[in-house]
């Protein structure tokens, strides 16, 4: 593969002897939308935790644009261009939609930058632009805890888009969404993966088919299969372990 933007090699993390991720090798290209699927406990969320720094690896390397992520602090990894959405919507419930997005703007992240931060037009414009993309532009003044579950998921995606990351990682972005909302989210993801690498963890196979460029199947911390959706769906091992007959 041509120079991958994310190169994971021999990644292992063990909790008291249990290997949640076991000598994993994974490569993601820029502009690729990779979906990671697999049964529960396969290590999918742990993989994202390791990349964004929430969990420390026991062994192995994670190179993002040739920078070694395993040695960096979480906020430094974010500033390097990695954005991560959590399984349960992780937004600021007591602030407005506008404020949620404003806080995610990648300027004034240091203490003094924060104190001196001014809400200039470029920030406002970007907030409006992103709000439009995530279907929330008429909810900007509302407090975030008033949004529906699906809208909260969109808000979190929007917060990540504000950061303009080069690697976007989404953990079950359509969980709890209606069919219509899933279609909207699929369109959104296809649009935003145009100029960045995206990793998505999902269980909804229809949704996966709509968005995936390539699919990786994890099982017991290791890669079981990898390839296009058709190839993976036809793989007998995958059917055995996850997809069912």
């Amino acid at each position: 593969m041509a120079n991958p933007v994310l190169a994971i090699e021999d990644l292992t993390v063990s909790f008291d002897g249990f290997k949640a991720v076991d000598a994993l090798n994974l490569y993601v290209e820029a502009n690729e939308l990779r979906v990671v699927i697999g049964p529960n406990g396969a290590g999918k969320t742990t993989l994202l935790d390791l990349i964004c720094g929430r969990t420390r690896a026991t062994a192995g390397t994670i190179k993002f644009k040739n920078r070694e992520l395993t040695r960096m602090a979480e906020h430094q990894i974010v500033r390097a261009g990695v954005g991560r959405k959590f399984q349960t919507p992780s937004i600021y419930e007591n602030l407005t939609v506008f404020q949620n997005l404003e806080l995610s703007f990648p300027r004034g992240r240091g203490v003094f930058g924060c104190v001196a931060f001014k809400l200039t037009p470029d920030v406002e414009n970007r907030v409006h632009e992103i709000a439009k993309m995530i279907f929330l532009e008429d909810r900007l003044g509302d407090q975030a805890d008033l949004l529906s579950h699906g809208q909260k998921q969109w808000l979190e995606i929007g917060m990540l888009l504000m950061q303009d990351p080069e690697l976007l990682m989404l953990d079950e972005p359509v969980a709890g969404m209606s069919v219509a909302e899933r279609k909207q989210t699929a369109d959104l993801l296809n649009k935003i993966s145009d100029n960045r690498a995206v990793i998505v963890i999902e269980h909804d196979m229809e949704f996966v088919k709509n968005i995936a460029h390539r699919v990786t199947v994890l099982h017991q911390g290791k890669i079981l299969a990898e390839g296009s959706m058709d190839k993976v769906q036809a793989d007998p091992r995958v059917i055995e372990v996850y997809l069912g007959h």
Partner: protein
Amino acid sequence: MKLMYERILGGKQGMMGLVVLCALLFVVLPLTFDLFRLNLIGKYLSYAFVAVGLVLCWGYGGILSLGQGVFFGLGGYCMAMFLKLEASDPESTKIQSTPGIPDFMDWNQLTALPKFWEPFHSFTFTMFAMLAVPALVAFILAVAMFKRRVGGVYFAIITQAVAAILTILIIGQQGLTGGVNGMTDLKTLHGWDIRTDSAKYILYFVNCVLLVGAILVSRYILSGKLGLLLLAMRDKEERVRFSGYDVSNFKIFVFVNAAMISAIGGAMFVLQVGFMSPSLVGIIPSIEMVIFAAVGGRMSLIGAVYGTLLVNFGKTYFSESFPQLWLFLMSALFISVVMFFPNGLAGLYEKYGKAWIEKRIGAWRNRGAAPRPAPQQT
């Protein structure tokens, strides 16, 4: 101008609150009370600095510090050391075995001024140390704990332990610090006698000016993105971290600020009351200062001042007339504020007071107007 108005003065709402507070501090109180009582109020207002600092680090930052007495004390002791040295010139201390050093050192058979006391001959140094020493201590504590993600209850208990340690150290090192009696007999600040009536008036107003200044500075800090971020951190610290912010830096920042504000309060205390002792440093005074902020409303800078005044008035009044009752009252106050009024007086005002005031203003505005015709029946 907009910056001034919005961020420092707090817009229309904030301005009103500030005006009322200033009217109270600068006009009403000095006119109502005699000098003796006013001096007492000045003492309470020096505690208010700590409460304001707590609004910053506890109300907004979510960091409960049960050791703010440490910073109040450090600031106060720095000022006291300067004043003590000035009061211990060789002329006034000529009856001592070693003239020229503070009396408690003489009583403890010290024959020379300890090295670390020397720089406090200089007023400039004292002003600097008064802010720098507490800031440094706060910085070290904060870095050590927040970088390791120690928070909440553990942090609170450790601050208690630090307060205990400092108290024991001060009391134990009688020769260096005056021990349990503290530093007393403070007379002049750069030749200006701080015990005269005019001095007390001046110091009262200086105290108020500084207090309002501290509130304005804190407002500026809290009204921008930083205030928003602190609220976000209290809600979902992880999300803030994963949005590219080094969370610990912000906690360190507010904690150090709170420490410096408390230190100014300590220095003003020494100037107005004329002494400093370890009884203002330890666990009990520290937790009392938390109650001042809690009663006033931990999210309200102006509320902190009112809370301090109210609790201290209560304390003085009740412990004179009904000493036994006072401690029960304090206990009940603690428990009820925590359980039922988490936003203190400010919260009550927001909920009930504002509506009542607006109704009164509305009624006053409509006075003399003809009664409205009854709605047409259809």
